[in-house]
């Protein structure tokens, strides 16, 4: 079993007619994701043709789309200026899982969305995240699925390409990957490391967990606490940003050492004290995995 999604997950694409939305919809379909419909306000009524697939209908609103389909998840490719509204629409329409790819959503919007989510059924992944990939089965988002092999390692990460890099090495081992989850690079996001760790912990397919963290915030420290208390499976950890200067945003809005907090050092120490084996180079994960016996 994968976590969060599987081949039966019925997916809606918000912002399907945009360049990125359309491109990645095609790629999701290629892997086998069930894309039932898309929404772009003002462009409803058309159908988008994708090779090797039924045409995907576009609606003006989720409300309209729901007259024809049920959805388990939506993926948001809407530009930052409109993404917050799209997220509220998905929450209010009771979409269970909302994956937000969009980068640049204001922080105040995210704190309000998180407060609003407290008595709602929806789970939010992202924003500014690459989404979820279950190798060789299904994906929601933009993770380049061609490079990853299915298996037993769960990967959770705050970044995109670094995750691909490390997952690429994992895929070269005999183990392969159960699910990759990118929680996103923003300071305020929906699901955190701990939320995903809980799922990996319960998932029977996942035997080993790899956490890919980076500077900024205390999410890795919280993850470490959770691992220490709750997780019996082997956990490996990587932290990016050891050389990052303070008070500078390292590409990700959330990757910043503020007021002396959120350093790589602090996170590495937290990992080590939680029994998480830390590796310093992406490639090292191969050796670490080869040493364990499952």
């Amino acid at each position, binding site marked *: 079993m994968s976590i969060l999604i599987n081949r039966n997950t019925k997916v809606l694409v918000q912002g399907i007619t945009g360049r990125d939305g359309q491109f990645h919809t095609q790629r999701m379909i290629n892997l086998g994701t069930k894309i039932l419909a898309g929404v772009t306000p003002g462009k409803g009524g058309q159908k988008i043709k994708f090779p090797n697939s039924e045409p995907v209908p576009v609606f003006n609103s989720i409300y309209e789309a729901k007259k024809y389909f049920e959805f388990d998840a939506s993926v948001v490719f809407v530009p*930052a200026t409109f993404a917050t509204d799209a997220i509220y629409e998905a929450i209010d329409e009771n979409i269970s899982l909302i994956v937000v790819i969009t980068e640049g959503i204001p922080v105040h919007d995210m704190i309000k969305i998180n*407060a609003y989510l407290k008595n709602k059924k929806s789970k939010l992944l992202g924003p500014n995240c690459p989404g979820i990939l279950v190798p060789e089965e299904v994906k929601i988002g*933009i993770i380049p699925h061609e490079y990853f092999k299915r298996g037993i390692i769960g990967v959770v990460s705050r970044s995109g390409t670094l995750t691909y890099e490390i997952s690429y090495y994992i895929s070269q081992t005999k183990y392969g990957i159960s699910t990759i989850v990118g929680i996103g690079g923003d300071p305020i996001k929906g699901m955190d490391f701990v939320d995903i760790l809980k799922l990996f912990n319960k998932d029977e397919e996942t035997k080993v967990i790899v956490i890919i963290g980076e500077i900024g915030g205390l999410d890795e420290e919280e993850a470490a606490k959770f691992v220490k208390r709750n997780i019996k499976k082997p956990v490996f950890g990587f932290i*990016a940003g050891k050389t*990052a200067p303070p008070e500078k945003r390292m590409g990700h*809005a959330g*990757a910043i050492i503020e007021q002396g907090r959120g350093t790589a050092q602090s996170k590495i120490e937290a990992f080590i004290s939680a029994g998480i084996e830390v590796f*310093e180079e992406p490639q090292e994960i191969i050796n670490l995995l080869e040493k364990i016996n499952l």
Partner: protein
Amino acid sequence: MKLFEYQAKEIFRKFNILTPKEKLANNEYEAIIFAKEIGFPCIFKAQVLVGGRGKAGGIKRIENEEEAKRFAKEMFLLKIKDIPVEKLLISSFVDIKKELYLSITIDRQEKIPIIIASKEGGIEIEELAKERPETILKINIDPLLGFKNYQGRNLCLELFGDLSLVNQFNELLQKLTTIFFLYELQLVEINPLALTKDNNFCAIDAKIIIDDNSLFRHPEFKNYVTQEIKNKIEEEAKSLGFSYIKLEGKVGCIVNGAGLAMATLDLIKKYGENPANFLDIGGSTNKERIEKALKLLIQDKDIKVILVNIFGGITRCDDVAYGLLSVIKEINIPIVARLIGTNQDKAYEILKDTNIILIDNMKEAIKKAVEIAVKS
């Protein structure tokens, strides 16, 4: 975006938060005139966007005209952490009974705004957090409901022991919260917040950081000057939409993705050199952006080697290769390129007859770049 003290205080005054009487001087002559207008003693405060201004001589108490003349001249010649002082804020002297610390920021872990307050004002909050963390008080603000008066009462009781100042204190907190939400701030800080002899609260200093992502909703800040962009390359990178940070080493880097870029810098350091920059060219890039990234980097004369590290997913390696190819002649420093993923083979084919050093493996590529830089 960080605002200057004088800009932050303009906002404060708009919301009737008390500040000292102030004038902004653009040169030493203005400074002298304004000092006389405001009266002695007054304070000269260099307007720079870096911390530790006081220790660097950026804040002076001016007792008379003579001192005004001397320090007006001196301070406009000052550089604070390499940043020249271009504006002086001339500030009236405030008779202070007590100095406090007050700010509103966002608690990343709790995902909510918090008010931070302390009886100990005037000290940097990081230092205070280390030295006397017990003096730091925190109050959660509900993101949808905002600040509640009872929270101000509780804070007041902790700070002053009674409620005699609660009305003016709650009014201040209401105003600060309004500013925080209205302008979608990451931080609004008053340090020190003065309790004056006549029991008013006065913002002696002011710091405001606006969330860059929200600036599209705040055109009022469009023309605000900022000093955050230190040099021409950073400015150009920003205008190109690159995430670029100048560092102190010799290995120039072009990477797709922030996490991979950070990991690349970490490995350069591990193998014995320092990176010259952080540069994330982003996800779905094309030939032109690679060209621009390269042209940007070669402006930095410290760079002795360029390392290109691409994990091709959405980014296509052949696009990157074409970008490299088109500017290769303009670049007279070695390039180490590691291109993996989408259309990798095409990329290698494109670049095979150039002098770009192609290395498949990230670690080996980084080692090679470091080796070149060390030798240079």
